[in-house]
């Protein structure tokens, strides 16, 4: 099928568990960090997949407090031989990420991944609009990178202020269109990223729409922002894919902790059925 830009998006890649070596762990903003992990036997990953990282470096004894690993989007990976260097972008927001920020080069971090399903790829010729809020940008780099060249790709990136933006240079290096919005106007346009989405869908298309083909929105960020994007896309009958976040203990469908409520009733598991969902299938009202 023409839409199968990456095979097996429904399954993803089978996961491994490994002790990864910290290659780099550098602060890039007031609270944003970029971690590079060297992972032996990493099987590769598809856009939208994530990994569970244990909180902090592995010392002489395994840490039990905090106990749970943290789900993190795989930002991108560089493979050489039978090991890969994985990049993870994260913000220090709690005890788990604060410990991760203390991990030094040469130390070990336990990783389980890649986990979850990949983003459903766009159809051939579809115009792709990727909306990211805050750390949501970490979930969409691989998507933008793999689609650049084959699809018209527009990335809309929003944050509260300029110093909250992450990885802008990486996106500028891609063959895509990038637009930034900050709430205080310290970078890009002043405003919220959902306004950028509305104008991208309604305004002049600057020649990127291929006549007769569709558009598709991908979104990752805070729940309220994703919900708003889902409404904006739905009102214009544009398919919208939302990548959800949730607390997880395992990441592979066993603890059943990451339930997301569905419109049709019942729950989906963010780790197994997602993280990316058809935004119209999610019951945003009941999503905490």
């Amino acid at each position: 099928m023409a839409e199968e830009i990456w095979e097996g998006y429904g399954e993803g890649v089978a996961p491994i568990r490994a002790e990864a070596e910290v290659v780099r762990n550098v602060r890039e903003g007031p609270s944003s960090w970029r971690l590079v992990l060297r992972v032996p036997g990493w099987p590769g990953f598809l856009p939208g997949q994530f990994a569970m990282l244990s909180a902090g470096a592995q010392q002489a004894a395994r840490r039990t407090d905090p106990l749970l690993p943290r789900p993190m989007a795989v930002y991108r990976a560089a493979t050489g031989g039978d090991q890969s260097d994985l990049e993870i972008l994260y913000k220090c927001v709690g005890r788990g990420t604060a410990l991760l920020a203390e991990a030094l080069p040469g130390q070990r971090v336990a990783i389980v991944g890649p986990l979850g399903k990949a983003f459903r790829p766009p159809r051939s010729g579809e115009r792709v609009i990727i909306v990211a809020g805050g750390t949501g940008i970490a979930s969409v780099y691989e998507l933008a990178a793999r689609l650049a060249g084959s699809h018209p790709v527009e990335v809309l990136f929003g944050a509260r202020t300029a110093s909250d933006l992450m990885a802008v240079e990486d996106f500028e290096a891609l063959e895509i269109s990038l637009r930034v919005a900050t709430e205080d106007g310290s970078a890009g346009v002043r405003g919220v990223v959902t306004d950028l989405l509305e104008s991208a869908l309604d305004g002049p298309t600057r020649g990127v729409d291929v006549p007769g083909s569709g558009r598709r929105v991908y979104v990752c960020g805070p729940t309220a922002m994703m919900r708003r994007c889902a409404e904006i896309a739905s009102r214009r009958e544009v398919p919208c894919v939302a990548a959800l976040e949730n607390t997880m203990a395992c990441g592979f469908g066993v603890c059943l902790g990451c339930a997301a409520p569905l419109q049709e009733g019942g729950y989906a598991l963010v780790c197994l059925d997602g993280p990316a969902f058809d935004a119209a299938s999610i019951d945003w009202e009941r999503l905490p």
Partner: protein
Amino acid sequence: MNEPQGVDTAVDLGGISLRNPVLTASGTFGYGTEFAPFLDLRRLGGFVAKSLTLEPRIGNPPPRIAEAPSGMLNAIGLENVGVEAFIGEKLPAIPEGVTVIASVFETEIDRYAEVCKRLTGVPRIAGLEVNASCPHVKSGGIEFGQDPTVLGRLVRTARQATTLPLLVKLSPNVTDIAEMARICEGEGASGISLINAVQALEVDPETRRPLLANGLGGLSGPAIRPIALRMVWQASQAVTIPICGIGGIENAADAVKFLLCGATAVQVGTSNYLQPSIAGDVADGIADYAVRHGYPRIRDLVGALELPGR
């Protein structure tokens, strides 16, 4: 497998023959196949599948889990595929040579009995574990395992409903675990598993709300291990039926502690989430311990705790 230097690792858990004493706890190991990427299931003594109810259940609204010091709270709320889908779809997917114990969970005693009956005679099921920590609807939501009379009726009814070896998983939320263990033995249980998660509450002071949508949850993980060891020890002093020790096991040394305190076998629980291959390592590590300490048979470790003289 798992017999380094001639150590006999086999144990008999109330009529369930296990190649080694390491099981995985219900609710922490799904239906088994989820762990195939990380672990050869045949390294385990066996596993206890996710608790089954008569009908499929969708579970509680989120948030369902929260972190606690060296542990986690959960209130998943009975989410499972139901007994028919387990027999028809999940069980056939489990590799041959893996010992499967089915866990039974319901809200009324008659319904427990129906699930037990349905599972009896199904090939591949080596035994049942009745989860007595579920709130009993007819007793106003108190756990089955918290009321001696209700627990007795539950075990008696389950015993009559199945010819399979019958384990009873006890709630730790009781004053006298020895009394509950004796009731199980008296009503014909083949063995007892303990402890289930400890009733707990965690709160967000900023929002002034419980962290879980359900309010209360069950605390599991290393935080509860010493409580579990104490209860296994007390139960083992009260009954002669075998005990399966559960509670915060992270490695082989932890598992050995439970054996020493009187457990015939153990179940690894929350650690499966963090380290999905850990149960196999625990099994190997117990055998290594036996070699190091000159025990030719792992079952000789059971109850070998040395108490200081008085």
